[in-house]
């Protein structure tokens, strides 16, 4: 199992007791998130829909790379990688 750091956005920190970074483990992004949800159950509903897919305004990055450029939730993770969860707020530019 790979150990990764997860960066929690400010909007969701009430679910992690105010923590901005938490650790979790898994083989894939999906596994890591499942582990995260076990520790912080409130996050499941904010991040995923009833099918278990990521909600459409949730973006997840693995070491800065959008997981949709990889295998989505199935993207494999390695030790010491950083998973970042952010709301989709592209604005214009």
């Amino acid at each position, binding site marked *: 199992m790979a150990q990764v750091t997860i*960066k929690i*956005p*400010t*909007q*969701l920190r*009430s679910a992690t007791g105010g923590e901005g970074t938490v650790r979790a483990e898994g083989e894939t992004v999906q596994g890591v998130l499942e582990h995260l949800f076990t520790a912080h159950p409130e996050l499941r*509903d*904010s*991040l995923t829909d009833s099918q278990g897919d990521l*909600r*459409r*305004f*949730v*973006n997840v*990055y693995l070491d*800065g790379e*959008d997981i*949709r*450029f990889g295998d989505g939730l199935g993207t494999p993770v390695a030790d010491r990688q950083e998973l*970042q969860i*952010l*709301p*989709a*707020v*592209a*604005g*214009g*530019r």
Partner: protein
Amino acid sequence: MPATALTCRECGSTYPLEAQFVCSRCFGPLEAQYAEHPSAGDPDAIKRRIQAGPQTIWRYADFLPTDRVPTLPAAGPGGTGGLDGLPAGGTPLVRADRLAERLGLREVWVKNDAANPTHSFKDRVVAVAAARAKELGFTTLACASTGNLANAVAAAGAALGMPVYVFIPADLEEQKILATGIYGATVVTVRGNYDDVNRLCTEIAGERPDWAFVNVNMRPYYAEGSKTLAYEIAEELGFQAPDRIVAPIASGSLFTKIGKGFREWIDLGLLPEGTQVPIMSGAQAAGCNPVAAAFDAGHDVCRPVRPDTIAKSLAIGNPADGPYAIELARKTSGTISEVTDDEIRAGIKLLAETTGIFTETAGGVTTATLRKLAEEGRIGRDERVVIVITGEGLKTLDAVRGTFECREIAPSFDEFETIAEHRAEVTA
């Protein structure tokens, strides 16, 4: 301000009118919610209120989520001195008969938003976001930008006396970088594309609660500024909607809000009985086409792409409002198309040659999309079409470098005569 709350577009949760921008329940985007218009039920009274207002977006203050209407300084000794924001909006809508003729269309109009203070439509969104940021007590303005927004935020900060930080991709057009730094803004060039810059700014916004990122934590206010494009087009046409709008899509915010602006005025009875929201045609570059691709495939979410196009102002590979842009295009029986870089250059040239308006690459995308729709016979012969030109050509000179040659001669009349094409007319 008739705005009363922010509501989540996905789940309907409501929040106070602060700098919150995502729903803490479902992460959906928040949008300003309004109370009934003060003159609802009396369209003529609403029109009179609008027409009594200034020649800027603030004539639509009843439809915008700020408390105070920014004003320009009064002239003379009683004047307040400092500029209370820049005069955004009030840009011309011009009829483009020669463009229409070239494309075999009957009626084409150009909404030239390059005529804003910093030469793009971004002055509209920044005016609203900056006014609200000041009301909420923020000390610093900031943004993630593909260039035009940086220009607008830097200038707005200068006009309001607020410090500005802008974050842009390091490979942006030099003209856009210069036109930002000159206002005294701190320009942070990020090694990465816009989506990387945006991700960084979303993170910084969470950690710097005293900074107003106009397109991140101020986004619900920012986004409303784009509605004024619809209001102006309708007002300039004599309180009528055109049949079709062609507008560019990057994040999809502008496109979506134009639709919202028409909807609001239809609902208030400001447009003739039976008026529909115009057919909405979105325009993207083939090198950054996530919304066009999803539209074509019949999807309602966009798969992100890595942008590679000369249309850098539209180079957002991960468009947050993509789903809403697709929904609007479908609902209005509209289209979302993509055009190649060569078509974009040809679009810039076509608009310039037929209207005298020199647009940046985004307007090349828009004009090329109009041409494509016309050539494919997808625009009705009798449609009244408005294309939205969102930015100025002097900001993207590289895109058109080498598209024509100059005729160099010695200062001699004989040499001139050898190259003069119009000699016959001149001597006749």
